[in-house]
């Protein structure tokens, strides 16, 4: 398994997926989750953030070998529990009842976060308000005066996992870009995002700049006109 986060941009483009402008965009949330699932290497230890990232699990193929970590102290977490399988002692980080799979393990909170901080997780998937060209991530706080700040495990995950995948819409409801030169929302972590999956395109954050890996119903030029930062074509 590739464990060097600096080489994220060197991963070849997926072979079996449509290239630029082959698909009409923008993609739905489910399609974005499927793209993320497609790119998680076989056998990875993965943490899926609360909210949309949790749905990536639904798109992992049987036999993916992926072991899901949940911050509240479990590895090899199974799907959501239903009916008689609901157990108040067994929940995910979103406090949703879940199940265990053969080979599950439980551990306390300090161990769970040592797994993150210690670089033992291969991939984490997080949502975002904004990602900057330098890979700064803002996903915990709008900074609004009346907002109650709540960070949970986001900051630990952002700086801990070997690769940080972000999934988000590329624009806000009012059309403002969420991939930005500099984040205006309070940061979750500095320079931590490796790849950004959006409804319009997939981006890699590299030392050279933001690389467009794939587009959906748009083009690099068209995106460059809507985003306030330079974009590099894949392999360019």
């Amino acid at each position, binding site marked *: 398994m590739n464990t060097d986060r600096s080489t994220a941009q060197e991963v070849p483009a997926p072979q079996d997926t449509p290239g630029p402008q082959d698909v009409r965009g923008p993609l739905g949330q489910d399609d974005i989750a499927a793209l993320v699932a497609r790119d998680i290497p076989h056998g990875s230890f993965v943490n899926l953030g609360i909210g949309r990232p949790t749905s990536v699990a639904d798109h992992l193929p049987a036999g993916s070998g992926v072991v899901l970590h949940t911050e509240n102290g479990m590895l090899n977490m199974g799907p959501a529990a239903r009916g008689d399988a609901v157990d108040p002692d067994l929940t995910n980080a979103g*406090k949703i009842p879940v199940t265990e799979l053969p080979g599950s393990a439980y551990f*306390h*909170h300090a161990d769970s976060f040592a797994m993150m901080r210690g670089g033992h997780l291969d991939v984490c998937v997080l949502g975002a308000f904004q990602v900057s060209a330098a890979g700064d991530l803002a996903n915990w706080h709008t900074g609004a005066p009346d907002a*109650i*700040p709540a*960070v*949970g*495990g986001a*900051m630990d995950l952002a*700086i801990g996992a070997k690769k940080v995948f972000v999934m988000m819409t590329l624009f806000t409801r009012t059309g403002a870009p969420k991939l930005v030169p500099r984040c205006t929302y309070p940061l979750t972590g500095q320079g931590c995002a490796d790849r950004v999956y959006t409804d319009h395109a997939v981006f890699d954050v590299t030392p050279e700049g933001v690389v467009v890996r794939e587009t959906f119903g748009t083009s690099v030029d068209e995106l460059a006109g809507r985003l306030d930062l330079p974009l590099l074509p894949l392999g360019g």
Partner: protein
Amino acid sequence: MTTQLCADADEAVAGIEDGSTVLVGGFGMAGMPVALIDALIRQGAKDLTVVSNNAGNGDTGLAALLAEGRVRKVICSFPRQRDSYVFDGLYRADRIELEVVPQGSLAERMRAAGAGIGAFYCPTGAGTLLAEGKETRVIDGRPHVLEYPIRGDVALIGAHRADRMGNLVYRKTARNFGPVMATAATTVVAQVREIVETGAIDPETVVTPSIYVDRVVQEGTA
């Protein structure tokens, strides 16, 4: 000191003083020592600082203690939840103080307290609002934030089973903060579902050894 087996939850929380820092186990309701919190409400200690991952759910447990106006400050990672209306109301009315700590740093700061560590440098939160006012240092090319231990006067935790010596085992993800908090407070009180004879827990499976546990009470004896 030998672990005290308490007759009920009221005995288990006796003596908690006004102004205490109370570590409260649980992640959401999993592992939340509800019987002990209910007893603490009856016991009457006020002006408390509560350290817990969340700031209460619904109207029971921690939320009920907050609603009684007995908590001066909450130190937690994630106060805002779908059903955290009790905390939200107090916070917006400026009737409670909040310190937000990244979840891993919250756990590690308590672990440090329990392990006799004076402070530690941690990369989490570097360059963010939560590192403001804290010493930072670049180690191995990465910025780290100096974090100090969080020590409790009391820890209230939920476990699954105890033996009569006070050795504890937990169940599934209800373990969460329990083992860490058990090391980090002067007086550690565990609420358990059953108490078994000493020797009935396989020593290989003990998660919290009895040395950390001061008082044990069985649920349902509130």
